[in-house]
């Protein structure tokens, strides 16, 4: 088997300095190979977003090791992690996190600009693909929740990263639109060999995945029973 693009070994994350709450992550481990489409399935509060933040280098683990494309995030340093996010990684936030002062188009274009391939046409195409043609010049507060989510997805895919981490990519969409977006997302990734990891608590998302990981109280377990799909 090829070297995994994402490898997480015994990851712990404890938010509180005092020990009142259980840690958000309690020794999670996982390996994801290049080009895989993986669903991370788990209940609310099980630690999915926490894990994603750590993989993207947005936060520091309490304990454990994360390797992305064979490189230890801790050893990469701040600069290396920034470059990773800038060029290699696309991130779709659960709460979109669009910049309020930029239009839909600019939010997408920003991502291209940071990745050093500014091309307005590419940004426009990406918005068209997520079904937002004609709404390029709206500000985030002039878009519906689902529309904002689609801008966030366009922002992640537009720079053609090698890994996309999507936290609840369809949480705000109706089933039809959700399926459409998932179709697009997985199709794009499979086509270009992009690794896609999606966090979700909706079982229909899992249908698009090659592999399903299950998150329970801060621990990742491989889904083998097909129980999720059966539901």
């Amino acid at each position, binding site marked *: 088997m090829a070297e995994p693009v994402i490898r997480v070994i015994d990851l712990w994350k404890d938010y509180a300095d005092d020990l009142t709450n259980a840690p958000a992550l309690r020794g999670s481990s996982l390996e994801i190979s290049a080009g895989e489409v993986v669903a991370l399935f788990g209940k609310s509060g099980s630690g999915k977003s926490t894990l994603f933040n750590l993989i993207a280098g*947005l936060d520091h683990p309490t304990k454990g090791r994360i390797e992305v494309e064979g490189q230890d995030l801790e050893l990469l340093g701040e600069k290396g992690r920034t*470059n*990773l996010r800038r060029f290699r990684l696309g*991130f779709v936030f659960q709460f979109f996190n669009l910049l*309020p002062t*930029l239009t839909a188009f*600019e939010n997408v274009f*920003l991502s291209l600009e940071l990745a050093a391939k500014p091309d307005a046409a590419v940004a426009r195409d990406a918005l068209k693909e997520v079904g937002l043609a004609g709404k390029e010049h709206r500000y985030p507060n002039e878009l519906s929740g689902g529309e*904002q989510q689609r801008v966030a997805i366009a922002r992640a895919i537009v720079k053609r990263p090698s890994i996309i981490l999507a936290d609840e990519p369809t949480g705000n969409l109706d089933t039809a639109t959700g399926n459409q977006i998932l179709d697009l997302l997985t199709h794009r990734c499979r086509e270009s060999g992009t690794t896609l990891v999606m966090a979700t608590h909706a079982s229909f998302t899992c249908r698009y995945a090659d592999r399903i990981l299950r998150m329970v109280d801060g621990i990742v377990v491989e889904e083998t029973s097909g129980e999720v799909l059966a539901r």
Partner: protein
Amino acid sequence: MKIVTKSFLRYLPRRLSLSLLQLMGVACGVAAVVGMTMSAITALASFTKAVEFLSGKATHSMQRPAGPTEESALAGLARDPAVVRFSPVIDRRLRLANGDLVRFLGVDPFLDRAIRPEIADAEVRPAKDNAAGALSFLLDDDAVLIDKELARQLQLSSGSLLQTTRGALRVIGTFSNPSGEPLVLMDIAHAQKLFTLNGFVDRVDLILADESGFRGRWEEGFLIQSGRQRSAAFSAMLGAFRLNLEALSLLALFVGVFLIYNTAMFAVLNRRRDTGILRSLGARRYEIIAAFVTEILILGFIGGALGGIIGYFLTRFLTALIGTSITDLYFFLRPEPSAWSNWILFAGVALGCGASMLGGALPLLEIVRTDPAKALSGRVAGRQSGRNAHRTSLAGLLILAVSTVLLILPRTHIYVGFAGVFGFLIGVSLLTGSVLVAIHPGLRWVLGRVGRLPGKVAAGNIRQNLGRTAVAVAAFMVALSMSVGLGSMIGSFRQSLVWWMESQLQGELYIGKIGEADVPESFYEEVKKMPGLGGADPYRNVQVLYRDVPVYVASVDASVVQRFTHFGWLKGGNENWEQVKRGGVVISESFSRRFGIKSGDTMTLHGAHGPAEFRVGGIFYDYTTEHGLLMMDRSTFLRVFGDHTINSLAAFIDPDNPHRLELIQEIKKKAEARGLPVQTQSQLRASILKVFDNTFAVTRSMRALAIVVAFFGIAGALLTLFMERRHDFGIYRALGFSTGQIATMTLLEGLGMGAVSYLLSMGAGTILAVLLINVINLRSFNWTIFFYPELGPYAWTAITALVASLGAAAYPIWKVCRTYPQMQIREE
């Protein structure tokens, strides 16, 4: 432009009201500094220029150590081989009919030509009916030349009359005067007549070829000063005043920078979440810093330029105030506000940008260092911010400790004292976070009582947004403390002055005016002989040099003063006058501290017949001069200095004298017959208080400025909080809060922060007042001010705090009501 930068700059128009407030914040800060510093510099420079102009090309000046100099000395000077040129001068002040005091010079036009050529070049345009032309200056005993600026101001031209308290003078020409000081010029012989100084001049200006030879021949009995010594003596005279201006400039700088700092800090804190997003998209730290710096610099640049312009206009106002103070206290001066220069704009911009960068730097560093995930989670959570607050307080305590050491270190430079005071303010301002945490339950209770649920939510908001509210409270508190501190200091000083007046100014009537109208000796003799009069004190106050620096000597009638006044003595009582009666002196507290001279010590002054020794009989509190005052009996003074001038005569009457009122009337009549100004005790006291109040006009302006700063500080903070929580407001409304309740909440947040700031400032302001009195004043003026606790400054500051908090809350409340009912719930 990079989109990263664009995303930041779009906030400026988007949150226009906040941007304008921030801009005004920077502008006010810069204006305070530019206005204060520039007017101080201008006033002091014009002082130097006036001194230079007056001494002209003279290398030296010569005069009796005290009082006027006999004309008879001139003959000897004319024959002295070292003297290249000499010119006798009468240098006085003349009060114009409109109340202004102007400098009056009496010179010999031929002798003076070499010293002050500008004056010799006067354009004399005699009236048509007077054929004498330029000669009329010598011939007509009311002929004067005035400088062009004064002529313009009074709309006088050749031939018109200049009305003065000494009669009408005929203007026969004008001359240009680069110093900007109004000047009236008369032939010396006529001047002697005008001031009844027959046979005397005030000094002789000299151009010397051989200084040491000259000194050898003349030093005995005369004070000979080189031009440099003279201007050094003049500057020394202004020393403490200059220091005071410097302190005020520093204060302005502190307040201004503090305001800009806060403004910039808020601007940065506002971008916390955006920074997180950008970082998570892979933006580099420097790209974010560059975007911030652009934003901050735009604010700093425009605000700074605006501040420069406002500051320039402030200068015009402050320069006049400072000029008035210098005139009242030291030296006649009417400084021209400096002309506009692009440097002002440049300085404003530099200051605005510099201080903004300083203010933005720390939070900026903090933000780009925070893990993006944390930054994304929004405002710093309560528990975390509490910990930060305690860490900040620790730093505050450390700074307070250092400041305390600076303040109690004995005999250090006054700047160390300033540093201590500013350190104190900074230290205290760092404690606000912890204070807010500590008093949260109390505040919640109080606000809950006042505003029920919205009140409780308001208290919670203040606690939750500690990162912002602590800074706002700190800034507001510092400004209010300044107001309380300066107010109490001025109030205490004024009370001390009143106490001093009650102790020293016990005469019924005061005849004559120092520097304006002297009292003839014959009048003194006449009054002294009046039956029923308790006593008459012939007061003479003159500047002499002691250890080469200017101090003042006063001569009094010791037995009269002993009987009728009760000076505030550092030690002992009126028996201290016994020493004075025996030929000794008593000295002011400032003299004692300045030269380290104690009661019982012996000191030497240079008199008209060489050095004379005096024994110090006592030390008294005094606020008339920070240079030091020593008092001796008139008999001693006449023996040592031979100066018979009497500046003013105090008439004392026993309070139980049945003919008191008649006596007063009689003296008044006698004085008026001689054209001498008369002041009653209460008039004199009132005029002294007026000078005092004028002197503190500048300080009061700074106090007003501190209040403006306070307003912008709290308004900016509230508006920022409001902007950030518009989203929350929508939620509150969705939860069933009425618009009124949300308005109450906003109002109570403002009032709550205002109240906490005010409570803190009561303590900090009182300490500040004590520091100003016991460290700054004592060290720069060498006098003790007694601390009189007064309600005034506290009440006044409370009103200010209330109005500022209400004003600051007004706009957000208006916004709340206006956007009803469609409040933003959606993520902005």
